[in-house]
């Protein structure tokens, strides 16, 4: 079957804007580098743990896409909301969840953020307004739209970032949500992480239109393309959208062009039938962490000692998270029936097997 022409590479990054390094202070730049490295090392640790069976089920790694989360979240206030899909470990960390609670959740342990009931795909924290962590492709998009509706309803000036992979754009939920967000002027920013592969299907084999940002035109919504491999460009583009949402309650669609360096999940090789080794190598040549380090060095705000110190801190933290997770107990069997209902009503039976499971 004929498919669309292959994509052109992303245009040269406009980077952080007019000012060098986005006009950011050294501390903030170091924090962003720390977050990117933390994400990378955390995922490497998770891959190790998965390989020895400490983590089960589906596990989708973010390696290669760190600049998207770190750059986008740098445009947020702490009380802003994030809703996302299932490739979300790093997003959870950058939003402020601890590496311990995230790793323990991946291990399925009691100290995990969801007490071991969610796992890799379902991370949430009400403390930092991170609303997860959703496993049905596109299912989180109406939810993010709803969070923005609540913000507007309550008269707040928060915003909601709603993430999705490019494959989610073909779901009805995407179109229904963008329509409502634009129609009702909701403070939501839809960020499409276009890593070009919906599992094993390349974007040009899945969409009649290559440029995702153009889809916003159908909803009379502003849109932008960001270089998702450049953390400063990602921040700049997101910041413009966040300002528009916060001040004027106008939603934006951002296409963040990026690459994943790993397979779709841990059960899928990095390259093979759907992706060539060369493609992966080309992507890795634009490693967002390396790119950022070069930018910082060139800007004279990162010494070798500082880089080493950040990396050592990150490594120690990930090691600690893995140890913490490993030592955390399994959830007790009594947890099986908790959190199904917030209110177990005074009258009537809610569970139809409880008798068989726990009383015998």
């Amino acid at each position: 079957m004929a498919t669309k022409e292959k994509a052109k590479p992303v245009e040269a990054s406009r980077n952080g804007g007019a000012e060098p390094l986005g006009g950011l202070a050294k501390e903030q730049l170091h924090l962003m580098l720390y977050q990117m490295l933390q994400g990378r090392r955390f995922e490497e640790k998770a891959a190790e743990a998965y390989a020895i069976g400490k983590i089960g089920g589906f596990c989708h790694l973010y390696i290669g896409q760190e600049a998207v989360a770190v750059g986008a979240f740098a445009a947020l206030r702490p009380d802003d909301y994030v809703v996302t899909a299932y490739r979300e470990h790093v997003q959870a960390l950058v939003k402020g969840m601890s590496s311990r609670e995230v790793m323990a959740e991946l291990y399925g342990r009691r100290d995990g953020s969801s007490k071991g009931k969610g796992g890799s795909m379902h991370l949430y924290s009400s403390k930092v307004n991170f609303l997860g962590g959703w496993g049905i492709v596109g299912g989180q998009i109406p939810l993010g739209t709803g969070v923005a509706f609540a913000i507007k309803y309550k008269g707040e000036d928060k915003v909601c970032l709603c993430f999705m992979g490019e494959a989610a754009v073909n779901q009805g939920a995407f179109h229904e949500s963008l329509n409502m967000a634009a129609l009702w002027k909701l403070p939501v920013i839809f960020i499409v992480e276009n890593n070009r592969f919906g599992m094993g299907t390349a974007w040009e084999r899945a969409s009649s239109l290559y440029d995702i940002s153009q889809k916003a035109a159908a909803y009379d919504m502003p849109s932008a393309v960001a270089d998702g491999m450049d953390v400063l460009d990602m921040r700049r583009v997101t910041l413009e959208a966040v300002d528009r949402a916060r001040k004027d309650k106008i939603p934006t669609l951002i296409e963040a062009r990026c690459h994943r360096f790993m397979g779709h999940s841990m059960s899928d090789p990095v390259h093979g039938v759907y992706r060539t080794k060369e493609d992966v190598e080309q992507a890795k040549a634009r490693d967002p962490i390396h790119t950022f380090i070069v930018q910082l060095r060139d800007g004279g705000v990162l010494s070798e000692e500082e880089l080493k110190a950040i990396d050592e801190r990150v490594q120690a933290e990930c090691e600690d998270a893995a140890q913490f997770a490993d030592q955390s107990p399994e959830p007790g069997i009594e947890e099986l029936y908790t959190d199904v209902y917030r209110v177990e009503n005074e009258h009537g039976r809610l569970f139809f097997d409880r008798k068989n499971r726990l009383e015998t």
Partner: protein
Amino acid sequence: MAVITYREALNQAMSEEMERDPNVFLMGEEVGLYNGAYKVSKGMLEKFGEMRVVDTPITELGFAGLGVGAAMAGLRPCIEFMTHNFAILAWDQIFNSAAKVLYMTGGQYNCPIVFRGPTGAALQLSAQHSQALEASYSHFPGLKVVTPGTPADAKGLLKAAIRDDDPVIVLEAEMLYNLKGEVPDGDDFVIPLGVAEIKREGGDVTILTHGKMIHIALQASQKLEKDGVQAEVVDLRSLRPLDLETITQSIAKTNRAVYLEEGWTYAGIGATIVATLQEESFDDLDAPILRVFQADVPMPYAKGLERAAKPSADRVVDACNRVLYRNER
């Protein structure tokens, strides 16, 4: 006590709860300017404004999911589906999101949301507009399901549903909206979820049912009475939580039961109730429980075929006679 219609009772329930709690809002197709496809929300837009009575595009998955997100962010949405047939488009958000929020977040976020609207057959609306979907909803842990069959139950159960901190499915019926009945006055009239009601007392046989089928059961019980049989009609009202106690007590009294439901029999509500009762009430039963249900086909359009497909009072009478081992046919 005022005599009002079922639709007025629903309107009162929503209006009172919206006055009581500023976080409650109504959203759905035609709920505002049009006053509701079935006029349930008549006058509410004028009263509460367009931020709290929200007309949506025809986008069921979208606004159902929007409601779930809004509930996670602290609001208490009341989502109206023009009918639950259309809610099938939104089932991903109801089953995959709303029902699982609390569990997947380890209790961090709950989802206080109501999904309401009519279900079941009206008259000659054919296959896609006539489905009784309570069994599908009741299947999912994390959801609560109520089926009010009278104006009083409509008001009391909808108020309880809006106040509940979990997702609640409220299943109404087109054929009930005009039904009049006595409804207690006052904002505090709330019927707790999980409490069945005996709509008619009798000692010979128990007719278990829910939703608008209670009226078929009552018709059947009148016919049976002429024949000297006193049927007890137990209206479950709430399918999850389920008031098993009232059911088993009635069976302990009558020793015989028929389950009447509007939907299909396979994996239906009756199937679950019968399976549960053979565990709970085995020694009280003098006959196998029989079920009366819709024909196992998509609903046909032609009048005669539709009539043949729907459960009827005559079928209930027949089933009662069979569990009583009378008039074997």
